[in-house]
C-alpha cells in the first residue's frame, strides 16, 4: 500500500511551518475546515507527514485520528513525498480502451518503479490516475503540469529522457 507511514525523515523548514500556522489561523472555526487546510498543507510541504498532521490536528483542535482518517481517505493526499517530476498515467476508460495499460507498463519498465513509488534519487514518482479529462487525446499522461497525449509505449522513453536531462 503506497499510502502508509513514510520512511523518509521529516524535513520541514520553520518557514513552511509558519505558513501552515497562518493557514490554520485563517480557517480555524470555519465549518469543514479540515480539507482546505490539508490541501494547503500538502501544497506547502508537498506531502502530509505525521508531523504535519499533528500540527493540523492541534491547530484546528480536532483529534489526530480524524485528520489521519481524512488524509488517508482521499487519493489526492499523499503521506509519502513526491518526486521532482510527478508522473500520472491516466487509466480512465477512454485511455484504457486505447491502450493506456501499455503506456503505464513502458513507464514502469523504464524507471523500474511501480505506481505509488518514487525513484531512489527522488527525481520521478509514478501514479496511475483516473481520468484527467483530456479524453480527446487518449491515452495521456501528465508530468507535473505538462500533458502528453496520443501516446504509444515507444513514445514514453524519449519523453522521460528529456526530463532526465534536465534533472
Amino acid at each position: 500500500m503506497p499510502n502508509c507511514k513514510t520512511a523518509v525523515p521529516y524535513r520541514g523548514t520553520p518557514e513552511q511551518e509558519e505558513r501552515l500556522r497562518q493557514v490554520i489561523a485563517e480557517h480555524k472555526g470555519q465549518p469543514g475546515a479540515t480539507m482546505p487546510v490539508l490541501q494547503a498543507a500538502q501544497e506547502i510541504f508537498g506531502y502530509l507527514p505525521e508531523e504535519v498532521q499533528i500540527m493540523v490536528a492541534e491547530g484546528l483542535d480536532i483529534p489526530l485520528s480524524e485528520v489521519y482518517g481524512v488524509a488517508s481517505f482521499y487519493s489526492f493526499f499523499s503521506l509519502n513525498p513526491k518526486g521532482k517530476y510527478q508522473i500520472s498515467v491516466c487509466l480512465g476508460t477512454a485511455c484504457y480502451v486505447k491502450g493506456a495499460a501499455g503506456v503505464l507498463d513502458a513507464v514502469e519498465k523504464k524507471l523500474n518503479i511501480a505506481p505509488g513509488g518514487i525513484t531512489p534519487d527522488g527525481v520521478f514518482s509514478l501514479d496511475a490516475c483516473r481520468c484527467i479529462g483530456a479524453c480527446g487525446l487518449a491515452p495521456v499522461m501528465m508530468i507535473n503540469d505538462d500533458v502528453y497525449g496520443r501516446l504509444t509505449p515507444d513514445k514514453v522513453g524519449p519523453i522521460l529522457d528529456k526530463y532526465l536531462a534536465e534533472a
Partner: protein
Amino acid sequence: MNHIRSHIMVCTGTGCTSSDSPRLISAFEEELLRAGMEQEVRVVKTGCFGLCAMGPIVMVFPEGACYTQVKLEDVPEIVSEHIVKGRIVTRLLHKEDAGADAVTSLAETNFYKNQMRIALRNCGVINPESIDEYIGVDGYTALERILTEQTPPQEIIDCIKKSGLRGRGGAGFSTGMKWQFTYDAKSDDGVKFVACNADEGDPGAFMDRSVLEGDPFSVIEAMTIAGYAIGAHQGYIYIRAEYPIAVKRLEIAIGQAKDYGLLGKDILGSGFDFDLELRLGAGAFVCGEETALMTSIEGHRGEPRPRPPFPANKGLFAKPTLLNNVETYANITWILNNGWEKFAAIGTEKSKGTKVFALGGKITNTGLVEIPMGTTLRTIVYDIGGGCPNGKKFKAAQTGGPSGGCIPESLIDTPIDYDSLTAIGSMMGSGGLIVMDEDNCMVDIAKFFLEFCVDESCGKCTPCRIGTKRLLDLLTKITDGNGTLEDLDTIEELCYHLKDSSLCALGQSAPNPVLSTLKYFKDEYIAHVVEKRCPAGVCKKLLKYEIVADKCKGCTLCARNCPVGAISGVVKGPHFIDTEKCIKCGLCQSNCRFGAIVKH
C-alpha cells in the same frame, strides 16, 4: 471605442490547452502586433467547441472559418492570408473526411448538424474569464428580472417543474421537485444551502468540466437564482481538484460577480444576499454521491449516509440543502429566459431537453456533443461521432461510467433518454459515452470497471467493500482461464445481492457493467470459460502466439527481441515459440516484418 472587425477565437479547454493552445494565443497576438492590426482584430480565449479530437481549434469570425489542429507555424499564414488579405486558409479548415471538399459552415457538418446546444450554448462563444461577455449574451437577465420584479419563489419553482428538467448527474430525479422539497423544508434557524456537484468522477466523462471552463457564469447565476427560490444565502461548489483550469475560471468568475454586485450582500439593491464558496475535492469517486459529497464538504472522510433523511430536509451541516449537478444548473437560466414551454417541447415524453455527452474511446470524433433527448445511439456514434476509426467494427457503447452498462450493436437504435437506457440495463449517468470496437474484450471491460469500484469503494458498508472484491476475483479467475460455468451463475447472484443491499449508488450500480455484458455478450464469457479463449485477443493469459512457418523467413529478429528466450530456430529456417516460456508481451509480433506471427 475601437471597431473590431474580426475575432480570432482560440479554444482554451483542457483538451486544446494540452495541445498547446495558450502558445497559439500569444503567437496570434504577436503576429497581429507585427501587422499593426492589434486594434481591429481581437484574440479571444473561449471554452470548448466540442471537437476535441481535432484540437487545437481556432475559429475566425465573421467568416466562421474553423481551423483544426493548428500549429504555431500556421499562425503567420492565418494572419497574413485570412486576416490581412481575406483569403481563407483552406488547407487548415475542418474537413469531415480526408479528400472531401472543405466545409465552410461548421453548423452544416454532420458533427454539429444533429446537435442542439443549450447547456453548452456559451461554450466557444464567449471568453469565460469575462463577465462582460457573459452579460453581452443575455447573461444575468434572468436574475435581474427575478430580483427587480421580486418574482415569488413558487413561480420560479413551478417554471422549472413544468419544464420537465431532470437531474443531469445520473439518476434523473425531477429538478423542480427537488427545488420544491428544499423550499418546503423547515430549518430551525432558517439556514439553508445551495450546492453544486462538480465532482465529475466517471472516468471518460468531461461534460461538467467543459461547462465550467467555457461558461462558469451560467452556473453561478443559476445557483444564485436557486438560492433566492429556496431561501438560501450560502452556496458551495464542490469541484474536483484534478480540474485546475475549471477551478481557476470559477475563482475568476466568482471574483468578477462580487465586483459587479451580483454576488454577496444586497444583490442589485434587492436586499437579497447570496455568497458562493469553492470546495475542492481530493480524488474520491464516491464523493460524487450526494450524501458523501456533503460529508466531504463538512471536512470528513467522504462516506455516504443512509437516506432518508434526504438532503432536501437534512443535508449539509444538517440543514436543508439543494444539490444539483453542473449541467442541470447550466440549463436553468435558459429555461427561465426562454420559457418552460420551449424546453418541454424538446426531447421525449419523460425526458425533456438535451443531454451533453463526452464521446470517447474508439470513435473518430472524440469530443463533447449535446443532443436532444431521444436521439438514437446510432446517430451519436455514426453521424456525429463518425464511427469507429481504422474501419473497425462497432461492438458496444458504454454509458454511465462504472455505474452504467454496455449497449450492444443490436440495440443501437435505442433512443437515448433516462427510461430507455435503464430499461436495457444501462443508465444515463452523467454523460460519459465510451465506444468500443471489435478489439475490446467485454469481460476485460467489465473487469476494468470493477477494479475501479474496488479501488473507490469507501469501505463503509460490507456488500460494496467485500462484494465488489469477490466479484473481481471471480472475473479475474475467468480471464486467467480458470473459470467454470458455475462461476457465471455465482457472479450473477452476487450482482443482485450487491444491488439490493449496498448503502449508496456506488455499490448498488457497481454490478451494472458485469450484468449488462453477461446479458449481451454471454458468448464471450463462455468462450473464456469453456474454450479458454479470448475472442478479442486481449486477455493475456488466454493468448497464444504462433509463428506461421510458411511466412517466416528465418531473419531471427523475433528470437533476438524475445525478453525470455522463448523463440528458437536457425537462420533462414522457420522459427518456433515455446508457449510454456512465452510471457505474451507481443514484442515478437510487433517486430516481425513479414506478418508471420499470429496471436489467437
